[in-house]
């Protein structure tokens, strides 16, 4: 059978691309004649700009020579960004026409914006038409089945639930000891792993915060992955993780892209894979961890619930407190259950599930100091592990960072007015000049953040220096 796979494709770094290449390998080994079309030049046989109606027409032309077309669907591949309702209508109709034009078409759904099919959205019919025009829509979770049949009005017979990791193969031959040696990890000690693209929604900062206190028990948490450096929010998140690494003993950040082999080697080296995601459509890491026999602790979000259902090695948590408890239980070698009573194994083995621990009595000053330290980390301020914060004294000294902290991020120009009709005009003007104003505003916000980080880091260093000087014996008196 001649099959066309439409997807981002190596050698670019892309999770969907990595997924697609494994599917292509499987199909080719099954004897199919497979060609690939990617949105940008790659190792694919064809590359087309698939966005907008023109992209749909080009795809339609290419599809004509194949018996089956498998489309890895993400809105960014097909729709202009940002997609206005009118552009969604034209693109949706053109894409639907392409899908109806000839061969069997399968949409493998990776992500979609369900707001595009709300009752008030003018593009809802066109967006639904895209999915309704496919021979089959493959999804990864029962929630997605429900969404496709309910909100997107795709007949149930056209929606198929497929296992996410069906085409995954193991990429490393190392065992745990060899993997740890090669990665410079200690042979003993519980190793937690957060792995994948480092993005705020992955919540790796949550795992770091939940890990507090476990470093002292010989455990370590490794955050491994690359940052999409052209995304400002990801860069901010990177600084936050660096700050947490500097503060929390046992937390280690390993930034950089990984080959498939190295990705699997990290998983093999770990004892527990932690997925503290804030939201996620579905997770390839879950599948790789399962493939390599490593238990996971994951937040109960998105498709993870379905992916991990019935997996005896999986622990699902609802919040940071449960995340910390589950991680403590893992270090103690005990099971943890969110529904267990306070005497369950995890808690009794490891104490209360809290990452807030203080050396001495808990007073306002030490709590404020810890709050200060954590918020500094959140702002990306690097400091020594365990360094005391400024404390919560009423007589807290003024800091260089204070005036900057009091500044609000620069808002977009307000498009509102009390005068009738002016708001509409302002909104119109705002939209017209957005291409020019938004980058400037974004740059101002980044400059503001960078200034604040610089000032706070300086404050922290000065304070550490001051502490060191206070702690040194006075030569003249000794």
């Amino acid at each position, binding site marked *: 059978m001649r099959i066309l796979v439409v997807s981002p494709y*190596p*050698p*670019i*770094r892309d999770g969907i691309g990595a997924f697609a*290449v494994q599917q*292509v*390998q499987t199909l*080719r*080994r099954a004897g199919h004649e*497979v060609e*690939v079309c990617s949105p*940008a*030049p*790659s*190792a*694919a*046989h064809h590359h087309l700009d698939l966005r907008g109606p023109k992209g749909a027409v080009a795809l339609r032309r290419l599809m004509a020579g194949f018996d089956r077309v498998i489309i890895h669907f993400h809105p960014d591949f097909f729709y202009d960004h940002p997609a206005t309702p009118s552009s969604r209508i034209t693109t949706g109709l053109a894409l639907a026409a392409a899908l109806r034009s000839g061969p069997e078409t399968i949409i493998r759904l990776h992500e979609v914006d369900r707001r595009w099919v709300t009752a008030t959205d003018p593009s809802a019919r066109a967006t639904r038409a895209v999915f309704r025009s496919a021979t089959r829509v493959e999804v990864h979770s029962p929630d997605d089945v429900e969404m496709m049949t309910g909100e997107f009005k795709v007949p149930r017979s056209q929606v198929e639930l497929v296992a996410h990791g069906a085409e995954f193969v193991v*990429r*490393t*031959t190392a065992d745990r000891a060899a993997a740890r040696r*090669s990665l410079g990890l200690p042979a003993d000690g519980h190793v937690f792993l957060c792995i994948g693209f480092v993005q705020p929604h992955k919540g790796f900062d949550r795992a770091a915060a939940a890990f507090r206190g476990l470093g002292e028990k010989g455990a370590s948490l490794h955050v491994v992955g*690359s940052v*999409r*450096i*052209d995304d400002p929010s990801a860069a901010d998140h990177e600084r936050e993780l660096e700050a947490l690494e500097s503060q929390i003993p046992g937390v280690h950040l*390993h930034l*950089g*892209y*990984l*080959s*498939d*082999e*190295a990705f699997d080697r990290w998983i093999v080296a770990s004892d527990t894979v932690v997925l503290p995601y804030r939201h996620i459509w579905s997770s390839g890491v879950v599948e790789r961890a399962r493939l390599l026999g490593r238990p996971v602790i994951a937040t109960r979000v998105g498709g993870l619930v379905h992916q991990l259902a019935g997996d005896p090695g999986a622990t699902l948590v609802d919040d940071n407190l449960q995340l910390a408890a589950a991680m403590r239980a893992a270090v103690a070698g005990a099971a943890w259950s969110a529904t267990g009573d306070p005497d369950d194994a995890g808690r009794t083995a490891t104490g209360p599930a809290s990452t807030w621990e203080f050396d001495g009595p808990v007073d306002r000053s030490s709590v404020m100091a810890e709050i200060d330290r954590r918020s500094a980390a959140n702002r990306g301020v690097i400091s020594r592990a365990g360094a005391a914060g400024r404390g919560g004294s009423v007589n807290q000294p003024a800091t260089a960072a204070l005036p900057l902290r009091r500044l609000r991020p620069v808002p977009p120009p307000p498009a509102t007015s009390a005068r009738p009709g002016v708001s509409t005009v302002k909104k119109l003007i705002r939209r017209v000049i957005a291409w020019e104003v938004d980058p400037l505003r974004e740059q101002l916000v980044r400059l503001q953040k960078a200034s604040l980080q610089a000032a706070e880091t300086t404050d922290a260093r000065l304070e550490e220096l001051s502490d060191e000087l206070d702690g040194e014996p006075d030569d003249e008196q000794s």
Partner: protein
Amino acid sequence: MDAPRLALVPPRYGPDVIGGAELVLREVAHGMTERGWEVEVLTTCARDHYTWANHYPAGTSTDGPVTIRRYPVVDDTSGKARATVAQRLALGEMPTLREQEAWMNDGLRVPELFHALLDDAETYQAIIVSPYLFWTSFACGLIAPERTILRPCLHDEPEARFELFEPLLNGVARIWINTEPEGDLLDQIAPHHAPASVMGEGVPVPEGYDPEGFRSRFALGDARFVLYAGRREGAKGWEQLLDAFVATVRKEDVDLHLVTIGVGEVHIPDDVAHLIHDLGLVSDRDRDDAFAAASGYLQPSALESFSRTVMEAWLAGTPVVANAASPVVAWHCERSGAGLTYEDDADLEQCLRFIAEAPEAAAELAVPGRRYVLDNYTWPVTLDRMEAGLKEMAGLV
């Protein structure tokens, strides 16, 4: 037991292909075949690395006992992404990862080669990709990284520091480097790189030389000359070398000619045309004899990971004058004691004067060079190291 299978993935391959890395892989292909390995070369249909035009027919052919599988080059992009990256680098800026990815895919691509390896990677005990900078190595090196050996031929160039290459340098099973300085550079660029071993390269040792025959065949008479052999292009430092040589001989007190062999265009100023001899591509025999007939060999490239021609010069008993900006060649010169290095044109001029004005001393300088090559860089010694490395990686020991 079936012979273990080895795949080599160079961007170009063939007896008529000019390029150090390509030549080495051809030697490896033949050498490993003789040692009982079944070797397949997966490569492109290109011969010329300037145009990447599909010169050879696609499909399967043989080079003696070596099987060659050729796949067509696709080169249908605009070059805009390459231009953007070049511009960023010229301004001293590091391109973003997205720009680097677009740069990598904005030139030759070989989808059929990628998919052939995707289909068959597991049938090979080892896959060697080289050099690092080419799409073939980058794309194919990550298909089955657990059995892939990268022979990077790493140079200290901005592209080597691209984040893009991290997975390749960090994720393959082994890295084979040529020299210790290349290893130092690798440590610096990719501190978490895959396990690396110094494999070096081999250089064929000619049975004899006929310098007089070379002079006669190319009508060089008794002229004392220095030689440059290789690609005549900016990246190899050729233009700078030519300028410096011309500036030196225009002083009219240095009795020296320059003979050059290899590919690439040579633009010789009219007033010194009688002193510079572009012989273009010559036979292996003529090349060897040229090394022996020369009074000195010039290596102007700052981007060398091994420098085969320097070894060929030393084998022929000829002293080397090399650009000190290449840590590798400077290292060879220091270790062997048979080469001079220059930092700038003034240094180079003095090196040329030394060769022209003190030929006996220059010849004496070259003496330890031959022993240095024979002890370290012959093919049997190199292939022994490579075979041991392959067997270790493939679990055949």
